[in-house]
């Protein structure tokens, strides 16, 4: 009888613990996502990239580790501390990873928005040389991302930044850029970040939206 109680207890406990507790994958993902969201130096992004690379290797069927690995590489590619060659190296890696993520999860609005972000980073590495040819590609990628999920706040705010650049160039009004920024900000404000974090969904981009909305006012 004692034995039976014990077994039932153990079973019950284990079931409960599965329900209540994250898997090791989720646990480490959440920890690393928290870290990358706070990261602001080249070394920290490098550490994040390495961490997500380790996670991706153990979880080859999940798109999130690849996505975050690519994101960490993209942030590195935006760093002013790197030479053009080094930026391109980081961004090529990011592009490769984003493609792999897309291979696992096709038509994913977040991954496509990230691809647009990578293209944007390539332009900012060499605006004079690449602006004309790659700006259109970045815009198209954000467009595709929004066609799948019109409420993707990251695609909206990055597109807003592209539009702002175009408006500055043509000396035209910022209405379109600002309306996109406003939309993005509204979505960021309305969403429950904790719920998204629990689902390992991307939450970054809020700061960009906040600062751009402010400059629009």
């Amino acid at each position, binding site marked *: 009888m004692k034995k039976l109680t014990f077994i039932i207890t153990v079973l019950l406990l284990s079931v409960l613990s599965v329900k209540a507790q994250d898997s090791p994958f989720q646990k480490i993902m959440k920890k690393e996502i928290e870290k990358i969201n706070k990261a602001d130096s080249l070394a920290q992004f490098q550490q994040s990239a390495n961490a997500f690379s380790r996670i991706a290797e153990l979880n080859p069927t999940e798109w999130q580790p690849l996505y975050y690995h690519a994101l960490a590489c993209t942030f590195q590619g935006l760093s002013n501390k790197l030479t053009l060659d080094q930026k391109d190296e980081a961004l090529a890696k990011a592009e490769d990873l984003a*493609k792999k993520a897309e291979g696992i999860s096709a038509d994913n609005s977040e991954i496509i928005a990230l691809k647009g972000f990578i293209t944007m980073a390539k332009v900012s590495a060499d605006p004079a040389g690449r602006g*004309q*040819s790659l700006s259109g590609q970045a815009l198209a990628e954000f467009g595709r991302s929004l066609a799948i999920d019109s409420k993707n706040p990251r695609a909206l705010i990055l597109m807003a930044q592209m539009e702002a650049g175009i408006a500055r160039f043509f000396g035209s009004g910022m209405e379109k850029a600002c309306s996109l920024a406003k939309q993005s900000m509204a979505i960021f404000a309305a969403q429950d970040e904790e719920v998204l974090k629990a689902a390992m969904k991307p939450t970054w981009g809020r700061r960009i939206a906040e600062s751009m909305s402010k400059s629009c006012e």
Partner: protein
Amino acid sequence: MKLYFTILIFFTAFAASAGTKISGIVTNQKGEAVPGSNVYIKGSYDGTSSDVNGNFSFETDSSGKQILMVQALGFKPQETVIECAGQIIELEIKLSESINLLTAVTVTAGAMEAGDEKKSVVLKPLDIVTTSGAMGDITGALLTLPGTSTVGNDGRLFVRGGDASETSIFIDGLQVGNAYGSTASNVPTRNRFSANLFKGSFFSTGGYSAEYGQALSSALALNTLDLPLRSQGDVSIMSVGGGYTQTLTGKQNALTASANYYNLAPYQSLVKQDFDWEKSPESWDSEISLRHKWGNASNGKAGFIKAYFHTEGNRMTIWQKIPGGNSRGDRVQLRNRYSYSNISFRHSGKKDWFFYGGVAFSHNSDALKLNADPLCRINQLAHAKLVAVKDFSPRFSFKNGLEWFVKAYSEALTDVNLKRSYTDHQPNHFAEATYYFSNRLIMVAGVRSGHSSLAKQFWMTPRFSVAWKLDNQGQFSFAAGKFKQLPEEKIRVLQNNLQNTAATHYILNYFFASNNRTFRAESFYKIYDHLVTYDDAAGNYSNFSQNGSGYARGVDFFYRDRKSIKETDFWITYSFVDSRRKYAAYETRVQPSFAPKHNGSIVVKHFASALKSQLGTSWSWNSGYPFSNPNRTDDMQQKTKMYSDLSISWSYLPRPHIILHVACSNVLGRNNVFGYRYASQPDESGTYAGLPVGQGAKRFAFAALFITISRDKNANQLNNL
């Protein structure tokens, strides 16, 4: 129960003692720290990154034999077996370099690439269309590059003492026959293909890969766009015509169809012309391009197929004065029909295999009428190609290709029922091995062989190149090779059994690219052999032999800077060519008329944001064209005055989707002369009368409005400029 308790205790104790601390340093082979490398226990989440000094330290709960992985960008991943038993493990990891194609050395000898992101580029794809003076012509933009000579009465590409036929042109790897529009003699032509079609180009002025054959001097490979960004319609309204292009895009497919019409009559009626046109050039063209992508690049198998069809028609009638004559001269009437179709594919398969190839067919027919005599010429070229590339390791790849060319030519005097023609089959094979000794040293060796059914000749040509990257951003490369080309069709049709002409190239190149500044210096030596010579009795050729020979040697420089002057991009080119050859009807080695000794150009583009405009100017110059004056006994001893052309252009973007473009060539109105034509018989005083070969008009002005219609209001036709 007691037992369970014991086990529980045991496990807790074990877990507590299992933490193994692993620390150490990651360096390269020279002992320098490798920061940011990924250090971890394979199969676990335990790991860390090395710091700025290459040091790392972390703990793991794993026990027993484990594999420690160390990975870093630019290095081969390294595995070390460790025993985790609770003790501290100290390690020194030395990583060895891996080959990184993105930053590794590339062979730049002879090569000039136009691409968006690659390192060794000298031009961006957009440059081809935004270079003022080029007027949207691909050739025009390439003529601002080192190693080329502008021959204003021809319009084609002349490379390093070679004539225009010595350059072969390829679209997506497949050869294009009659890439330039048909024209009357001394009336310059243009490339038939719109620069908008292409995403990049590879232009080689010598020493090129075994992949390209039947070209003595140069290869120009143009690569078409993959999937366009969006569906859109493009309207163009020009001073010389108009056109419409519709692009439809799907997820994996795209369709582009376009139609254009050009007529120079209205323009030429307004602006005084030096050519005596009876009927100004008029042309139409239409194109369809289909693209389809398959597979998924992330899991290895993916590919692309492109089909492209182009057809066009041109007509013109011009009167050309005869030296010494008083009449209007010869009346030349030309009607041209041309079609080119090309189906190409590329496919990356499993196990590092890559395949590409396709089939292409060009058909050109010229109905010429010289005064009352009609002449009909038909030129056909079919090309099939299949190439397999295997990467045996990141260091070593091997390329193998099979090609089949069918070249057919016929010319007929229709009113007297005289016709001559030939058909030539040319199977070709090429193989090329690429080996990286390190990221700084690369060697490419190849061999190309072929057979001509008409010449009944088999040939084999070796090619070799090597490149060495220096510690800074500079690199040296050297290329050498043998090149064969069968004579021009107009000669071959007269003498079918003519064999290959031959050239040997040696090229030494220095290339430096850093931070938006590019410098390129190249010296070359080219030896010509087996050139066709003949007797020329007033246009009747006879007594063919292949005893002609010659050389071209020289040096050229290119400097491009997008950084020093704000919002300004400029490049400067200088080419020196010393060339002499015995060819055609010349009895001694002469400097060819198409090889001026000194050539230079300056191209400047300035972005004026306040004016929403791009302003451009280009200046092209050479030291003059040699010509033969029959009033003197020696061949080619005289030279025209120097050639100089200053062009300007202005592109105005009032709205993102509207572009207004205005351009003018030779704004200074310089009277350039490209040579002289002489009477075939001396006049009463015993001298041969001469006429200068000049420009069609002092200047050429061009205005156009480009409007893009799409849901995305920011799209435009920047490519059209």
